[in-house]
């Protein structure tokens, strides 16, 4: 890490002028990762208390991926996400309160309570409603890239997906189409070893999703997804290439989800040893240790406290927010309504 003193980027969307990251920038990466981690942990607690309806797919352990990738994106770049979108949303800049309120099913949620945990998104920061169909984003993202090309902008789209999704037909059609059209897209595969309960080796004879890129004439690259600086560096190159017109790239980010697949998963399909091994690579611990070499402990502690305060605020905001009106359920299926609306 350099001791460069450039002003840290205060929010996602900062252009990566260099692959180097100074201490203040590193602190910001740490803060965002911690925000995601603590968001997930606190959400789980309020979920258990019955405050959040439905189900949750959580992101603990994978924070370096979302934060590292989104750090090299502009606000005008777009991402697609999955059933496990909390980390992506916070990393791309979805308002914390609005994300929390959405989980609570409140009118102030980023989707007005219509989306919920699996469909977090916010067009104003460049995030589609997350797509909870595995592989669903892999075809839709090509349209984003196509639009950018047709509109002659230099925007880039990032498609987040899991290694499990790489077995869907959508992975194949999306990547191939993006390749032949040279679209400005980064396919960011988070290989956390499992799709629900199923280990990847039961569903693919090739251990690396990146190896599949060759089938499309696309560059595939394996990245340590537990190291935010490594992710940021690789994503920075990938995004810059895509932006420059070099076509799509497939990044495979080797990572691990510390929690179960969804709430209530007791993780009987994997060993505690394996979990401990990956816990030992906790990306947040790693960056904190590195930061501690150059930053005073109380700077870090203050950051931690700031995260906690922001979460206190967001949870309180969500709790206090009004419920949607029942009749709001019946709007927004169409932009132009021609027929009579049904009555509740």
């Amino acid at each position, binding site marked *: 890490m350099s001791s460069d003193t450039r002003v840290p980027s205060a929010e996602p969307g900062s252009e990566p002028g260099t692959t180097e990251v100074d201490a203040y920038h590193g602190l910001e990466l740490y803060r965002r990762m911690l925000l995601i981690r603590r968001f997930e942990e606190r959400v789980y607690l309020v979920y258990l208390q019955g405050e959040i*309806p439905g189900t949750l797919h959580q992101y603990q352990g994978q924070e370096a991926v979302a934060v590292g990738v989104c750090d090299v994106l502009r606000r005008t770049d777009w991402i697609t996400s999955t059933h496990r979108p909390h980390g992506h949303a916070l990393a791309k800049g979805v308002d914390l309160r609005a994300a929390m309120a959405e989980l609570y099913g409140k009118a102030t949620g980023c989707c007005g*309570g*219509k989306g919920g945990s699996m*469909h977090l998104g916010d067009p104003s920061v460049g995030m589609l409603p997350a797509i909870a169909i595995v*592989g*669903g984003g892999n075809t839709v993202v090509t349209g984003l890239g196509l639009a950018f090309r047709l509109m002659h902008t230099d925007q880039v789209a990032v498609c987040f997906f899991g290694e*499990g999704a790489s077995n869907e037909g959508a992975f194949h059609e999306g990547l191939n189409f993006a390749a032949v059209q040279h679209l400005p897209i980064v396919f960011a595969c988070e290989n956390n070893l499992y799709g629900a309960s199923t280990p990847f080796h039961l*569903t693919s004879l090739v251990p690396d999703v990146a190896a599949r890129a060759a089938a499309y004439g696309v560059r595939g690259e394996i990245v340590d997804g537990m190291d935010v600086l490594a992710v940021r560096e690789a994503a920075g190159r990938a995004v810059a290439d895509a932006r420059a017109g070099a076509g799509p790239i497939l990044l495979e980010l080797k990572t691990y989800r510390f929690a179960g697949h969804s709430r209530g998963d007791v993780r009987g*399909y994997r060993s505690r040893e394996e979990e401990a091994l990956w816990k030992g690579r906790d990306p947040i611990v790693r960056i904190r240790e590195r930061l501690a070499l150059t930053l005073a402990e109380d700077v870090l502690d203050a950051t931690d406290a700031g995260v906690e305060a922001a979460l206190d605020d967001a949870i309180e905001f969500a709790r206090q927010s009004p419920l949607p009106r029942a009749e709001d*359920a019946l709007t927004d299926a169409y932009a132009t309504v021609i027929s009579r609306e049904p009555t509740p």
Partner: protein
Amino acid sequence: MTPGTPPAKGGRRLNIAEALREAIAEEMRHDEKVFLIGEDVGVPGGFGGAFGVYLGLTEEFGHERIIDTPISEKAIAGAAVGAALMGMRPIPDLQYSDFLFECMDELVNQAAKMRYMSNGRLSVPMVLRCPVGTANRGAQHGQCPESYFVHVPGLKVVCVSDAYHAKGLLKSAVRDDDPVIFFEHKLLYGSKGREQAGGMDLTAYVPEEEYLFPIGRAVVKREGTSVTVVATHMSLYRSLAAAEELARDGIECEVIDPLTLLPLDEETIFASVRKTGRLVIAHEDTLTGGWGGELAARVAEECLFSLEAPIRRVASHDVPLPVAPVMEQTVVPSVARIKAAIQSCCGG
């Protein structure tokens, strides 16, 4: 036990998840051609399917016959079609019905047409099990897409609402030589306890002895003379609740569970409509183009002059599913909406 005998009170009670598990185990023992295939169905230490229906089955049948797949719905459905064409009897699993849209070609263009294209020389005996229904998971994890499949000649479509019929129908479906799409409602499995279904008792009498319940037969769940109510899954229970409430006002509903949507048991339903002169249909699938429309159309053709009131349909409103409970409950048919429809049908 005579096929089709309705469940008696008392005796051994199972929930739907248990009844389905028992049906699968019996059929796997009975015919070595039966096998399971899907995502997360048999992983050691795993979920036993998205709703735990398969828990314990790999211990008896092994991984040869309980096949864990990649997340590849086209491959799952395609493999089932191909194996069925070779005389096997696959039971593919689709975790959530919402994912059916990933393998429509295999179902609509292959499973449903292969027999016909071969001039009747091949058949496709498979049973695709799909959980449906709203459970606070939003637009892509709560759909009830039964009606799409009611529109596919070559398929059969079953919806089960209690453990007795779930078991008897699943066994019949496995033995049937045609492809069957088998819809189960998430809130009715019973594997997650009763609170999810609003405190309902989610068990039913299931005899120890083997029995089959035939595809294509409806059951009258409650007799009545004022109005016929046809409903499936959660809407059935909501209709029964509405019927109880309305009985106090002297409206006696005849509530019918069609169980099979394709082919529909017209005989039972038409007989009831001819008796009551009134028809209300309730389903959680969305209104426009829903199977309720098909039923209404048939009644309007076959029993028009028996009708004393317009046919009313109660269905999910024509919107995607929102996740916030207050909106979600607005979209799906409630007891109140069903009750209001019955009342209006009965001139209330």
